[in-house]
């Protein structure tokens, strides 16, 4: 168990390309932090810098009280779960779990105890003598987590561990990871591009864009009060509507120049509402209906109940508290 501290961490590749710029983050002991952002935003690089698989060119990473910048991955007291599991294909599940412990000269009895325990937690006991190729995707994923658990590390690092699973299994494994982390209360750093995964798993979210931190906060904080237009558009599904204020002149707050943001579910259908949207497409989701259209030449989406009657136009209003305002140039939140 340990806290992890990132102090002005940055990464510049030898060619001069900057991957990460000035990230500072304090992760408390036992906290579940999710790094989320679009592909290429540097989230994996940041995780790998904590793991020791990428060098740190600026700033300092501390695990516990120890600066680990120059320490080998094996000596950082971390365990990592990879996207493609990275199980050793020629070893049985048991050997996969044992390998790291054997390399550390852990006593045999202790290795057995930990393997049995992890196998119990992850329901892997019947598969211990199988090779990874004889396991399903979900089971392989469990073995990969088991390999992390048996190490009893100060921190777990997850690099998009669920992206290779099908949608249904992903939801199930998401819950399992969450429960597991609660139970072991091991500090965890988790990378994903899936905002839903990020929302459901995280104690706190770190939203990254182009190697920079856009916002750090609890999932609800980030959802309710996005710090920038980027976060607003990235977190939440369906995505928040972001339109220039001049496109919706009758909304409160449209007086200022800038971007207005509001969530599709916050729009209220009202026959003489101030927003008139021309409908261009409809997506049926069963429980609700996503209606796409345009207002003043800007694309907009609204969720409606499946019972509502549809015509060419829909009129809506918006409660004042559901409106977010962003600076048009910097994209930062205004208020």
């Amino acid at each position, binding site marked *: 168990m340990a806290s992890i501290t990132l102090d002005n961490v940055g990464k510049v590749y030898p060619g001069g390309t900057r991957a990460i710029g000035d990230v500072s983050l304090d992760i408390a002991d036992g906290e579940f932090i999710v790094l989320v952002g679009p592909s290429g935003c540097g989230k994996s690089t940041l995780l790998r810098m904590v793991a020791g*698989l990428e060098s740190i060119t600026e700033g300092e990473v501390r695990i516990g009280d120890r600066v680990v910048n120059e320490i080998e991955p094996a000596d950082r007291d971390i365990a990592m779960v990879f996207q493609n599991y990275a199980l050793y294909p020629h070893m049985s599940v048991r050997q996969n779990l044992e390998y790291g412990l054997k390399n550390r000269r852990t006593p045999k009895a202790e290795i057995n105890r930990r393997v049995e325990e992890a196998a119990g937690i992850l329901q892997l006991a019947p598969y211990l003598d199988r090779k990874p190729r004889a396991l399903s995707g979900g089971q392989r994923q469990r073995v990969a987590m088991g390999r992390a658990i048996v190490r009893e590390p100060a921190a777990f690092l997850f690099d998009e561990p669920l992206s290779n699973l099908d949608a249904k299994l992903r939801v199930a494994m998401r819950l399992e990871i969450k429960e597991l982390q609660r139970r072991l209360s091991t500090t965890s750093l988790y990378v994903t591009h899936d905002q839903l995964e990020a929302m459901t798993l995280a104690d706190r979210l770190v939203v990254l864009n182009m190697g920079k931190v856009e916002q750090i906060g609890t999932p609800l904080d980030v959802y309710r009060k996005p710090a920038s237009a980027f976060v607003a558009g990235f977190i939440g599904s369906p995505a928040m509507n972001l339109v220039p204020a001049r496109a919706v002149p009758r909304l409160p707050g449209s007086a200022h120049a800038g971007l207005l943001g509001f969530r599709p579910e916050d729009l209220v259908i009202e026959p003489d509402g101030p927003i008139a949207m021309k409908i261009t497409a409809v997506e049926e989701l069963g429980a609700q209906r996503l209606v796409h259209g345009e207002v003043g030449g800007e694309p907009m989406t609204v969720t409606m109940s499946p019972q509502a009657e549809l015509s060419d136009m829909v009129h809506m209003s918006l409660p004042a508290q559901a409106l977010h305002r962003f600076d048009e140039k910097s994209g930062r939140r205004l208020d």
Partner: protein
Amino acid sequence: MIENRPGLNALAHLVLIIGVVVVALPVWVAFVASTHTATDFMSGTVPMWPGPHLVENYSRMLDAGVSTSGTPPVARMMFNSLVMALAIAIGKIAISILSAFAIVYFRFPLRGLAFWCIFVTLMLPVEVRIVPTFQVVAGLGLLNSYAGLSIPLIASATATFLFRQVFLTMPDELVEAARIDGAGPMKFFRDILLPLSRTNMAALFVILFIYGWNQYLWPLLVTTDSSYYTIVAGIKRMADAVDGLPQWHLVMATAVLAMIPPVAVVIGMQRLFVKGLVETEK
């Protein structure tokens, strides 16, 4: 192809059968010749069915050999060939897998140069560098020794490339997982890379064993002491009868014996060999 035309099938089989006959007939003739006496083959009609002297001819070759040609018993030559082929195959695999490991997984100064040096040796087969190589081996006093027979043939650019390609297909995450699991470079090599290259090593072993076994020119040059003769070079010496006719029945018996070990290696390692050439999952 889901075509089903009987005529086409028959034609395909005919072509294949002709091919097999063309390849197999000389082998059959060699075997038949090795079961007759010397005079049977000189009588004008070549027998096509095995004769009664199989045991006699083979046991004579294995024990005594043809004394007039100056070759030792075939058993001795087969042993020499076996030592040479094994040394070449194992030596080549050991050296090339290590150099491929260095080239793929380490960043060291002049790595590019080292890589290209290996690459250039591809263009220089034994025959091209045979005179300087002989000079070196002679200078080192390695003539008439197993070391002299095998060491100059051990360095292999081809095998290094093969292993390089194999290593390049290993997912990076495997290396990273091993690093996090506390495996140093050599431990990673031993525990992960070697077992995963097992089938490739087997495939290469088959090819290299046959390469080593079939060496002709080099053993002919570096061995003057008959106790170091290899079988492939020995056959040639037997066929060169100085006075009188070559004893074809005995030469053919030797040839048949010389064929057995490579065939045994291919059959014995067939499963691994095919796996090594087609397997892609890592």
